């Protein structure tokens, strides 16, 4: 049975909005995905029937809030195939990576090395540069291939006995390329390095089995995975979380506080100082449950058929150049392109007049843009609720930009 995109679309109220007389063709899912009604309902239920702080109160609302918050942790854990106590709620994916860079990073010594790739989002570069400035670690960089993939063939020459962590985008936010996790993990383990994946672009495309990947850290954002803003997730192996010192200090993350000495709560509480993003976490739990109910075999095939339609259509437009992998293999539904003689922002602005939302610019991946001497690209990022009408509106808009702006 084919994937029923219409039934998915009906669950997203924003997709039936009409703006300036045009339907919403939302192809900017890589920046923020839209939210299904079930997530909105979960947040609303918390706000209207259980709003209170978690953990500390003894009253019934506090108990409801705590139960909903911890249930959300369980939902996220099921989504990732791990134990709930290995899930840390953060403010976002960036916050999760910063947590690792600060906390795990504090266990590193001057001269230790971190290995990143040339296509990383700035959120998987800058936290490590801050750590480098603080602690004297070194950063190495895996180059990308001509088709925008991390060139893992370079790994053996870049890994050293001092390499302590390899941190890579699970999927490129610019090219959609899926990294070969097994190859990265096998090579990293040869030198005893840990592996972290930035899962911001992968989590929105279905449940994961993190233990099977053999990695050590995983981070993703709620708002890209059909959940609310202001929440993200860090997963780490329990022995790593146990060994890591706190990132932020404050309430909830302590064992006992005296002016002489403070002890830390066990993970994950140790890393959730202060009042956490309770409503957003509950919404993210609902989003993970929603994703677990989707037929991802059908959804992925549907998404990639749309990618093919985008690529085929762009190739008929004079001056449109695809950037990234030429095939659909080991690829997720992100397509970047340039249009000769028209700046990506002007393409995106023109598309907006056709009701099409895309992202244009450097996509927080300036080293990758520099590598290919690009000012930026126009990026189409697809979710299961997109359909042929979205792609056709996109192609109409790109043709219009090509005709009128050069």
């Amino acid at each position, binding site marked *: 049975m084919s994937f029923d995109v219409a039934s998915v679309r009906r669950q997203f109220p924003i997709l039936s909005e009409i703006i300036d007389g045009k339907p919403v063709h939302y192809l900017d899912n890589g920046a923020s995905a839209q939210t299904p009604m079930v997530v909105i309902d979960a947040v609303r239920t918390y706000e209207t029937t259980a709003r209170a702080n978690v953990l500390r109160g003894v009253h019934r609302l506090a108990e409801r809030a705590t139960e909903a918050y911890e249930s959300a942790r369980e939902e996220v854990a099921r989504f990732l195939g791990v134990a709930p106590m290995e899930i840390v709620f953060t403010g976002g994916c960036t916050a999760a990576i910063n947590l690792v860079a600060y906390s795990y990073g504090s266990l590193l010594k001057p001269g230790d090395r971190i290995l990143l790739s040339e296509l990383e989002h700035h959120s998987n570069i800058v936290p490590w540069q801050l750590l480098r400035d603080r602690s004297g670690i070194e950063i190495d960089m895996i180059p990308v291939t001509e088709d925008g993939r991390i060139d893992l063939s370079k790994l053996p020459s870049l890994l050293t006995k001092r390499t302590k962590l390899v941190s890579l985008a699970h999927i490129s936010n610019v090219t959609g390329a899926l990294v070969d996790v097994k190859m990265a993990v096998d090579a990293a383990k040869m030198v005893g390095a840990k592996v972290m994946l930035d899962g911001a672009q992968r989590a929105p495309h279905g449940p994961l089995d993190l233990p099977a990947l053999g990695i050590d850290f995983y981070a993703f954002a709620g708002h890209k995975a059909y959940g609310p803003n202001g929440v993200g997730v860090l997963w780490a192996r329990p022995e790593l979380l146990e060994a890591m010192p706190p990132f932020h200090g404050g309430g909830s993350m302590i064992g006992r506080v005296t002016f002489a000495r403070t002890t830390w709560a066990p993970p994950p509480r140790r890393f959730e100082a202060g009042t956490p993003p309770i409503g957003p976490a509950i919404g993210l739990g609902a989003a993970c449950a929603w994703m677990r109910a989707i037929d991802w075999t059908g959804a992925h095939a549907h998404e990639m058929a749309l990618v093919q339609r985008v690529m085929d259509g762009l190739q008929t437009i004079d001056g449109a150049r695809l950037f990234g992998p030429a095939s659909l293999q080991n690829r997720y539904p992100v397509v970047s392109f340039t249009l000769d003689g028209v*700046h990506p922002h002007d393409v995106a602005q023109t598309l907006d007049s056709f009701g099409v939302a895309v992202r244009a610019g450097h996509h927080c991946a300036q080293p990758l843009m520099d590598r290919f001497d690009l000012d930026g690209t126009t990026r189409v990022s697809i979710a299961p609720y997109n359909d042929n009408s979205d792609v056709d509106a996109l192609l109409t808009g790109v043709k219009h930009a090509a005709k009128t702006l050069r």
Partner: protein
Amino acid sequence: MSDQLYQDRIVALAKAKIGAGKLADPTKSARRDNPLCGDRVTIDVRLQDGRIAGIAHQVRGCLLCQASASALASVAVGKGAGEIEALRHDAERAVGREPGSAAAPFDAFTPVADHKSRQECVLLPFEALKDALS
């Protein structure tokens, strides 16, 4: 709406590329980047008695930024820093950041007033020129 944004005068200014390129003998040069969108403007000026005797720009940016640099180059020669600042106010009025109406050529940018996220694109060449004149 974007179709109204890219009106003929803006597109014509961008395509005219007035002053596009480099000066062979610049007195000063300055480069400005917009970290949000990645637009980059480099401006060369040749100064004579504190006034602009020659100007050239290289724009790696959008059509609005190209059009603004082109408009600026079309009127900058013979002007000093104070007069360039006055032109900037004209551009700010055009994009709705200051009250009042703008004169040519910057009145071409009045459609940008409805697109707050694109206003910096128009003003970036002024930032670069200000640096070059300082």
